[in-house]
């Protein structure tokens, strides 16, 4: 009964004293219990170093901007997304109160939200978090209609190509190209297309983009319980997607080791000056090409993700990071406050310049500094607006692993049987009748 007034009193003091303290810089440690918010971040090349323009730097800047109300401390998570999920899941299932903020991969949002691991977004903050944000990022941060996470940055894939190869193949890259055209070009010119078809999440990214580009969806009823899940794999869209994969594998344009190709191998294929032709990969490629010793940077162009079906606009893949607030955190209100600062357009711009990870906020792309560093910024923004997120489901882990299993290896993909087999496997697994 007494607490609300006490809290109000503290806040009032904080609000009046805060600005004064902020003027003194951040070397205060007055009034003992300034809460420290722990932000679990995915490694982003900036590591835990607050000067490397990664999340650690944003944490420091937002601590300074908080004016003494709280401090943000970063904690690293492992490098791979599935390890990150493991760590967070284990802690959250044990109701760890030490998790205030976390950087979540979009595909885990549904699982965490359904399990009750995310503190609800204050209703008055929803508009602020979604203002000027690309639709895909908003969609990926929602669960059952309401916003449960804060869009931070958004990733998508582009089609990178050798201008000389495209010209020799007679492709007009100023217009949308289809996968079929690329495969034919690769086959006739004896050049490679770098894709991701190893047995890992990146393969599902490709598959989802193919299906969405054909107008289909992997999951028809997001939010359904396990026994009611309906998949849209065994449809014309699914068959079209499988055909693309089959063609890439059969013609050999995917490289000699297609079944072990991840982003790195795809980039390596593209860096081989003798055989490189096309590549679908995330924008980190632009910064990584010079590091790989690529000498033909002038010959490299970029275009929107290829279409699955001629005439239907492609749906580029969607990735990125959403910020989640732990449901058992002691200070969810402060955490959302911090999230506002972290995901602000200024910080998204800083992050994009520092790590190359594209912002979720559309206004950032107009900034001249961004355009200078990333000449393809406009294309990234366009792609993000058309991007299709992967299925939103609390069972995403099962769906993804099931897809990876049935569609591996890529040269065994058969449009007539694989989509149906995948549907059967996943529905059995979800019903508890099969092993994954």
């Amino acid at each position: 009964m007494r607490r609300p007034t006490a809290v109000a009193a503290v806040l009032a003091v904080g609000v009046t004293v805060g600005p004064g303290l902020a003027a003194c810089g951040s070397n205060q440690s007055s009034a003992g219990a300034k809460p420290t918010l722990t932000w679990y971040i995915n490694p982003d090349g900036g590591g835990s170093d607050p000067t490397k323009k990664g999340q650690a730097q944003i944490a420091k800047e937002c601590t300074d901007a908080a004016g003494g109300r709280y401090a943000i401390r970063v904690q690293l998570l492992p490098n791979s997304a599935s390890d990150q999920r493991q760590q967070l899941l284990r802690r959250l299932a044990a109701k760890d109160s030490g998790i205030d903020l976390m950087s979540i991969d979009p595909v885990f949002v549904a699982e965490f939200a359904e399990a009750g691991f995310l503190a609800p977004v204050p209703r008055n903050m929803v508009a602020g978090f979604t203002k000027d944000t690309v639709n895909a990022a908003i969609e990926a941060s929602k669960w059952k209609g309401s916003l449960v996470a804060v869009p931070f940055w958004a990733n998508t894939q582009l089609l990178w190509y050798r201008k000389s190869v495209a010209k020799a193949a007679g492709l007009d890259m100023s217009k949308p190209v289809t996968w079929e055209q690329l495969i034919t070009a690769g086959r006739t010119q004896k050049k490679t297309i770098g894709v991701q078809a190893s047995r890992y999440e990146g393969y599902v990214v490709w598959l989802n983009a193919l299906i969405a580009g054909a107008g289909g969806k992997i999951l028809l009823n997001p939010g359904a319980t396990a026994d009611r899940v309906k998949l849209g794999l065994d449809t014309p869209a699914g068959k079209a997607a499988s055909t693309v994969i089959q063609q890439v594998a059969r013609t050999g344009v995917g490289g000699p080791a297609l079944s072990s190709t991840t982003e790195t191998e795809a980039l390596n294929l593209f860096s081989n000056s003798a055989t490189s032709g096309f590549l679908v990969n995330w924008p980190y490629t632009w910064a990584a090409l010079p590091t790989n010793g690529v000498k033909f940077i002038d010959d490299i162009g970029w275009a929107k993700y290829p279409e699955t079906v001629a005439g239907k606009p492609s749906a580029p893949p969607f990735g990125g990071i959403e910020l989640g607030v732990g449901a058992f955190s002691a200070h969810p209100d402060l955490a959302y406050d911090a999230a506002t600062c972290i995901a602000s357009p200024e910080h998204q711009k800083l992050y994009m310049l520092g790590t190359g990870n594209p912002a979720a906020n559309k206004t950032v792309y107009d900034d001249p500094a961004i355009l200078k560093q990333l000449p393809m910024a406009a294309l990234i923004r366009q792609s993000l607006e058309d991007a299709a997120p992967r299925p939103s489901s609390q069972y995403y882990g099962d769906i993804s692993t099931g897809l990876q299993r049935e569609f591996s290896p890529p040269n065994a993909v058969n449009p007539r049987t694989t989509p149906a087999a995948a549907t059967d496997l996943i529905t059995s697994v979800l019903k508890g009748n099969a092993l994954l």
Partner: protein
Amino acid sequence: MTSLAEDAGHEASPQAHRARKAALSDRARAERALGWRLAGPAFVIMLAVTAYPILNALWLSLFNYRLTDPNARSFVLLQNYVVILTDGLWWTAVGITVAITLITVVVEFVLGMALAMVMNKIVIPRRTLRTVILVPYAIITVVSAFAWKYAFAVDSGFANHWLHTLTFGAFPLTYDWFGGTWSSLAIICLSEIWKTTPFMSLLLLAGLAQVDSALDEAAKVDGATFWQRLYKVTLPNMKAAIMVALLFRTLDAFRIFDNVFIMTGGSQNTSTVSLVAYNQTISRAEIGMGSAVSVLLFLIVVGICVVFVKAFKVDLAQVKGD
């Protein structure tokens, strides 16, 4: 010891006999007390750490329990086991695991024995050789798996280049080792053998060092050949060490995980039983099913142990006689 006391008791009076018997059982009791005092701490620690988790896993295997949905937990008794035992993936995984185990253990035993014999007798360069042989075992497993994967990858690896050169161009430069079941297994086994042969050779070396060389010399004097000496003198005298080496190596080989996870992730039908357990427990967060897979894996490995101990007829607990 018993025989001494018995012999002594024959000639004494009944009273002295009884006294000696009492002293004997005192001694026996003291021995028992000492035995438990010595072995107790180890026993207690082993149990204390794992009893609760193992029982917990056994209990959970009877449920349908997803970590992210604890309210939907339901008791299904043996349904999980039925699902596992009727699933094709399980039997494929068991088959692959058995294949990997057989291949690696046999190769490692032969190789390990050869290495142990060399290490035992070598003069120059003794220290270097013994250290170098043990180094693979010291490399962190995950890094070793990565290194082997990279070595045989088409783009970043040197293995294809070397093989191409060694076979004068017959071997294709773009051979995809990880594109098929048996070629992937070959690399997985190679990596596993390279990494854990030192374990085998270490145990065998220590066992070899205990074999009395006088016996070997005597056999040589009697005109036995190298192989005869090996089979009739050396190996039988190392039986206990061989059993421990083979047993533990088999148990570890059956539970292979790191190499498979990093090199193929289970694709090309190279799933092993541990990988299946991992997929259920971690990827799906299905604790119930994952625990059931673990229990089944445990039971299979227990079966292997029983077979080993019975086949070797070495009773480590037997004290008197051999």
